[in-house]
């Protein structure tokens, strides 16, 4: 078994080595900074532009989290509807798939025309990207209840509501959480794509627009700094959702109990 500290140290070492190589390559080859900035240039830009970039990050983050919350709630409710009636599921599921496979860049302009509030328009775009994994995972979960447990609930005279609440919903929880972890990243991607399409949102400019802007102005170090913030945000969202998932499932689900067994 690998040492616990190695799980943190090894990827960090790879990252550090990569950055050092990058730095050296830029200095040795003399690539101009507007083509490829060295990591030190990016760090400096992060320091200088950091406060204003963080403000933009906050705008993007608000859209992302709102979209994720909407995806969790509405996605969960849609899955609940699907599980209550097979007819509802087979009637509506294809449309959820259509919404999922249509590229968001293609429909974002329409949404931005139809929805007048900038925040709501961006939220809708991010939601469309993010809701599907939750719907599809949770639907599978709600239909995965143990058949013998279902029989037992019937034997003891459980109402459909009790079967749903005491059996189907707990069974679906790990599936829902797995969907949520995927949706976390997708909500961020959806928010960024929507911002790209929407352009400036007036006084409130998200991180995506800052990336575009930096590109136009050949402020490449700032572009990289913004990119770095986006990736870091994505990682943090994933870690937080992973933590929540482990906390909720730690007593019973294989995915969360495997490590604390003696």
């Amino acid at each position, binding site marked *: 078994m690998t040492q616990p500290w190695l799980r943190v140290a090894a990827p960090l070492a790879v990252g550090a080595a990569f950055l050092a190589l990058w730095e050296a390559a830029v200095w040795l080859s003399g690539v101009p900074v507007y083509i490829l900035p060295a990591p030190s240039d990016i760090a400096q830009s992060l320091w200088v532009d950091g406060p204003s970039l963080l403000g933009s990050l906050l705008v993007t983050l608000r859209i992302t989290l709102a979209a994720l919350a909407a995806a969790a709630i509405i996605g969960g409710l849609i899955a609940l509807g699907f599980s209550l009636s097979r007819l509802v599921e087979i009637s509506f599921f294809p449309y959820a798939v259509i919404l999922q496979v249509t590229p968001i860049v293609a429909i974002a302009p329409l949404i931005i025309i139809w929805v007048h509030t900038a925040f709501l328009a961006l939220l809708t775009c991010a939601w469309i990207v993010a809701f599907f994994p939750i719907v599809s995972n949770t639907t599978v979960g709600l239909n995965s209840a143990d058949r013998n447990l279902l*029989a*037992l609930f019937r*034997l003891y*005279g459980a109402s459909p509501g009790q079967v749903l609440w005491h059996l189907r919903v707990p069974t679906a*929880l790990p599936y829902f959480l797995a969907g949520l972890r995927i949706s976390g990243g997708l909500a961020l991607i959806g928010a960024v794509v929507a911002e790209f399409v929407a352009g400036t949102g007036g006084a409130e400019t998200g991180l995506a627009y800052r990336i575009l802007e930096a590109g136009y102005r050949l402020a490449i170090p700032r572009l990289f700094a913004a990119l770095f913030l986006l990736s870091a945000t994505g990682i943090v969202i994933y870690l937080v959702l992973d933590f929540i998932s482990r906390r909720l499932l730690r007593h*019973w*689900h294989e995915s969360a109990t495997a490590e604390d067994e003696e």
Partner: protein
Amino acid sequence: MASDEPILELRGVAKRFAAGLDALAGIDLDVRPGEFLSLLGPSGCGKSTLLRIVAGLTAPSAGECRLATDRAPGRIGFVFQDPTLMPWSTVTANVLLPFRIARQRGVEIRRKALDAIRAVGLAGFEDAYPHQLSGGMRMRVSIARALVTDPELLLLDEPFAALDEITRLQLNDDLLSLWGRHRPTILFVTHSVFESVYLSTRVAVMSARPGRIVADLAVDLEQPRERSTRMSPAYGAMCERVSAALATAMAA
């Protein structure tokens, strides 16, 4: 007690599945209160289906299944081959399930659950989760849950088939002592001759395709059964008779 009115009467019970498979045909069976009846047969003889019909989980295609007791929740206990526990709930919460469904709660209910957990030898594990328990302990939880409502009829569907020999013998004895204390009527499905003879007061031998009862043998071994019972000549002779009946059933 054998003179009592039967608690369960099956008359010409048959089950045909949608695929056209005849699982059961012409089952006639009377079970009296307090009996420990084993349904013994090869796999695929429909004994589990029969148990599900008695529990009211499956409707028979023909015939009648009459229960002297009402079918009110909790009058029948069911133990599956798998422990069938809710992995997200503690031992206590799993055992409380029948009451939770009946929307009964309170100190008295909780005490019943704790008593049932103690009765199956799991005192100290009330707050454990199923994944922390061994296979045999999970099966004990399952039995505690079936017993907690003090059922008149207890249905067990090959509950020990997946357990190792040592655990299985131990659970056989524990089940017998629980039966001795509360005397519910037990219908016990098994494919083990030795288990059926050791546990039961009566063994119904079934043949397969379609499942029917081909022999109905009373087991007149001394009560209570103990480990030494397994060594007695009477036990050996009875096992031989039941084996012979089973061999005939499988040849038919």
